[in-house]
């Protein structure tokens, strides 16, 4: 008997399922299992989480991770709007150049860019030398290896994602909307908040999801700019796995990170469903 079209579809997608299953589901399951087991205890246990809960380092890293991801998201939104609007207002001949400038950093290794920031931010770096030379400070400011350095580095890293998302949604809108708003008596500031922002909400939601998720899971930037003094969940995993060889603790942190990301995705979807009802 010949295969029905659904059967054929299943047969054709089977290899993909197998590969995805092997590459993604199994490691996730293993992560799950090792997060709830401990070498010293029989069966499943919450001991790993308990240990993290009582560790100041771990709880600090948890809150710091959320703080950094939120700060980075907010910063990229604040910087994203002027850049996206500037791009769309720019001369048509200039736009391809601006787009290249915007996307180019994405082609440079994250590590290279972190080293760039180190050169700028370190105690003997460009920033401190300038501040000292101008007499604004009497001794070097400590920025490198603080949360601020991580926020700065990640914001710069993730800004293009926000700008591109905003451009995509603003570009789709009728170019006369702002003028219509002004002709109806709204000044430019009112027009921005009442028209431009609402029009860009779909892009804002996408951009927020992208930036927050990437900020949450960034590794190289916090490692190089935050250092050991300001661990985030990702760098904590690294420390547990490769410095203290506590694989169970590393798995537990990994699971927390996944849950954080899922909570945020759910939140984003929920807001999206509420807000976007009046769009599309």
């Amino acid at each position, binding site marked *: 008997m010949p295969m029905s079209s659904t059967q054929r579809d299943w047969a054709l997608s089977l290899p993909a399922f197998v590969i995805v299953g092997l590459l993604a589901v199994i490691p996730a399951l293993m992560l799950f299992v090792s997060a709830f087991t401990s070498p010293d205890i029989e069966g499943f246990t919450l001991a790993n989480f308990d240990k993290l809960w009582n560790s100041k380092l771990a709880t600090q890293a948890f809150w710091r991770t959320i703080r950094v991801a939120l700060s980075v998201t907010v910063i990229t939104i604040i910087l994203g709007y002027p850049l996206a609007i500037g791009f769309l207002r720019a001369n048509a001949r200039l736009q391809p150049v601006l787009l290249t400038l915007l996307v180019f950093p994405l082609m440079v290794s994250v590590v290279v860019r972190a080293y760039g920031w180190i050169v700028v931010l370190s105690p003997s770096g460009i920033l401190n030398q300038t501040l000292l030379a101008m007499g604004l400070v009497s001794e070097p400011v400590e920025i490198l290896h603080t949360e601020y350095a991580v926020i700065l580095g990640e914001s710069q890293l993730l800004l293009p994602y926000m700008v591109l998302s905003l451009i995509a949604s603003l570009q789709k809108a009728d170019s006369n909307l702002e*003028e*219509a*708003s002004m*002709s109806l*008596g709204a000044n430019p500031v009112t027009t921005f908040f009442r*028209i431009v922002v609402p029009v860009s*909400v779909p892009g804002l939601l996408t951009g927020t999801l992208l930036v927050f998720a990437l900020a949450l899971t960034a590794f190289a930037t916090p490692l190089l700019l935050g250092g050991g003094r300001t661990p985030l969940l990702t760098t904590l995993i690294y420390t547990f796995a490769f410095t203290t060889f506590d694989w169970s603790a590393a798995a537990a942190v990994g699971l927390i990170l996944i849950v954080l990301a899922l909570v945020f995705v759910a939140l984003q979807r929920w807001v999206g469903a509420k807000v976007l009802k009046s769009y599309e």
Partner: protein
Amino acid sequence: MSSVEVRNLVKKYGAFTAVRDASFKAESGSLISILGPSGCGKTTTLRTIAGFEDITSGEILLDDRPLANTPPWRRNIGIVFQSYALFPFMTVGANVGYGLKMRKLAKSDIDRRTDEALKRVGLPDSQSKYPRQLSGGQRQRVALARALVFEPDVMLLDEPLSALDAKLRDEMRFELKRIQKQSGVTTLLVTHDQEEAFTLSDQIVVMNNAIVKQVGTPREIWDQPGSAFVADFIGVENIFPAETVAGGIEISGNRFSAGSPNNRPDPFKVGFRSSDLVLVDADNVETENRITGEVIGEAYTGDSNVYQVQTGLGAEPVILKSKKDQKLHGNVHMRLPPEKILVLEED
């Protein structure tokens, strides 16, 4: 209601001049249209009045008050964009009420006036719909209501009917006229459709290549187009270069008697409408203003036949319109009544 006057308006984009020395005035409560082909500077003129473009030189006056230092949001000018530019994420009610909200009216007043405005454009009970749920014609009505609800001094319409299909366009044309008359708002309409301009306007400003070619009532422009461009644009089919001779004019050596020789520009062209040509019999003894030629092409337009007739007036064939049941072929004889000859400036 206010009058709007544009005085010697010049708008340049770098070295390119989009509007060159335009002057016209829309009296309070009247409807004036700017008519011209694509790219002639109609929208640019409208946008300078709205305040979206700086002007290079000249003046725009609202009731004799210069607008130069008034930003768009304080001009109290309602605009209907060609794309309508309705706010997609707002309901129809919120769209129409936006201008009132910006004027800080009480919620109850906003609701009442929004309802009134929607009723006036024939869309009651659509407050809670979204623009995407409306047809093109309905969107156009919402845009109109939104531009009128705050009682603007002036309303600007940029090709408001061009996005509609032919049947709806005819309907909306009458609607537009009715709504404009009812509200009494001074209105400036941009269009490249001469029929629209003629049926709606009190005054027409004809533009070409950034220049205002003629300003006048529809009747004036129809009866006395000033230049070959205007005549051509409003559909005068036959236009030929001519010169003044004793007792009349000459077109390629053919003598015609014509109206008074006064005010003839030099050089000039003459124009005449296909429907103004009178067919005559070959053996008619009256030979004054006779044009003879051979039919070389024909087209049927529903209520008439249109013929191309090769004549001695020039290389271009003469266009002749005959009644539906009147078939022509071979040689035809036509008479051009002297009073139907339009004297046109060359451009």
